[in-house]
């Protein structure tokens, strides 16, 4: 018995587009606020940080799809590509704002920071690792790559870990905000090793449940 009613099939397509539109709202809205003086005293940093936070959130949403299905019977797998791509777009925006608006395309400073600052190095590696995932997110690549596609997209686990580490290293102290985001990623990653045994146990229990009436 699913927890929430199923969406009519004809709405699947539009609902995916809605995820894209809603997902990009935070970026558009904060850009508007920043450009019109609504992001406070240091708008560029604020904008940059908001984009980074939303990137982490979309990674969290992406990672949550599988446990939602396993544990709660909610199948939102059709949104996972949109969520993953949104995470990529936000990481790209986060990087662009840092490079263009914050460091004002000071190439020397950009490269120096990428090489010298571990948290920026980690961030850059994660961005680079997201590129092949975004490029192969289309149906053609999924068909073409087969099993390799699945292995390749497991890259999201180290990327999520890197994103959490990047955030952890970038803040001066761990307060509620950083803690909640990092804990969510840690929890969702920690779930993965337990997934197979859990599913096996669920299957056997189901088999036992189904078998019992026959015995009576």
């Amino acid at each position, binding site marked *: 018995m699913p927890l929430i009613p199923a969406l009519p099939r004809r709405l699947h397509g539009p609902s995916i587009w809605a995820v894209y539109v809603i997902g990009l709202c935070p970026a558009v809205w904060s850009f508007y606020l920043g*450009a019109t*003086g609504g992001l*406070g005293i*240091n708008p*560029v940093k604020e904008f940059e940080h908001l984009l980074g936070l939303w990137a982490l959130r979309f990674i969290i949403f992406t990672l949550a799809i599988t446990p939602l299905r396993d544990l709660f019977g909610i199948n939102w797998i059709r949104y996972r590509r949109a969520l993953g791509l949104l995470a990529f777009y936000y990481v790209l925006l986060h990087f662009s704002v840092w490079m263009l608006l914050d460091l004002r395309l000071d190439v020397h400073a950009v490269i120096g920071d990428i090489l*010298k600052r571990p948290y920026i190095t980690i961030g850059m590696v994660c961005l680079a690792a997201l590129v092949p995932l975004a490029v192969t997110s289309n149906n053609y690549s999924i068909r073409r790559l087969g099993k390799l596609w699945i292995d390749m997209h497991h890259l999201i686990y180290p990327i999520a870990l890197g994103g959490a580490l990047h955030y952890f290293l970038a803040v001066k*102290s761990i307060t509620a905000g950083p*803690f909640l985001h990092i804990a969510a990623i840690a929890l969702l990653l920690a779930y993965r090793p337990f997934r197979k045994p859990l599913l096996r146990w669920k299957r056997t229990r189901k088999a036992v449940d189904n078998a019992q009436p026959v015995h009576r």
Partner: protein
Amino acid sequence: MAVYRPTHIPASEITPHSIYMSRRNFMGAAAASLALAGAGGSALAAPLQATPGAYKLDEKLTPKEAVTSYNNFYEFGTDKSDPSSNSGDFKPTPWSVKVDGLVGKPKEFGLEELMKMPLEDRTYRMRCVEGWSMVIPWIGFPLAALLDQVEPQGSAKYVSFETVVRPSEMPGQKGLFQPLPWPYVEGLRLDEARHPLTILAVGLYGETLPNQNGAPIRLVVPWKYGFKSIKSIVRILLTDKQPETTWKNSNAREYGFYSNVNPAVDHPRWSQATEQRIGEGGFFNTARRPTLPFNGYGDEVASLYAGMDLKANY
């Protein structure tokens, strides 16, 4: 040590009151006073009289709105806007500062007494360790003037400072996620503390200190990163050992005891070569400028560190 050139230009004249109290500031101030009036018991920002300071700075002042709404004061929360939004319940009066330790005449100074010290206008650059800076017209008096009154003993080598702990009035001091252990503590070498640039500030922009800026009395050490300039001080202790300092305790690799502004010594996680001047530039043109050694006060203070390896003593 360089000789100061008195200029007889008070900070309030560098930018006329009518200009810096622009409409927005006025609206903000009006809203703030309404909020404060509603809170009851809180001190309103009161005008302060001060004599022209002995230190001149030919730089554009950071707008008052930015100085009073973009703050690091973790006792009220870790977001830049938290101190201005969460400090309404804080009561800076009555107040006293206990000065003791290795001194001949330990004493508890009442705020009234401190406000009667020879107050001066002192416009200083303020460089945060996070890579941004401001130019702030403080009102205060040299810390040395206070230390003279308690007669430090010959054995005193350091001065330590302590911020008030009031979880009921400071929301950042309660709850599950405490960013730092309290009380916030800081310290200086005695010669740094006695340096004429080191002041205890009781006001800014011609008025008593707003709560978010460290009311009613705070330290200002302009050649060090901002976190050295401890706020809302309740105790000053003279010692013979290097004092504990909060950020050094929290992460010694990143925050040293000296924490002099130094573009050549990077923070382990970011460069200190440049800084963003708050309140200048905009969304599409941030105002980055090179950071100066000792925050531009090298002529005055570099001699304090003669022969010291500033990379090792960061």
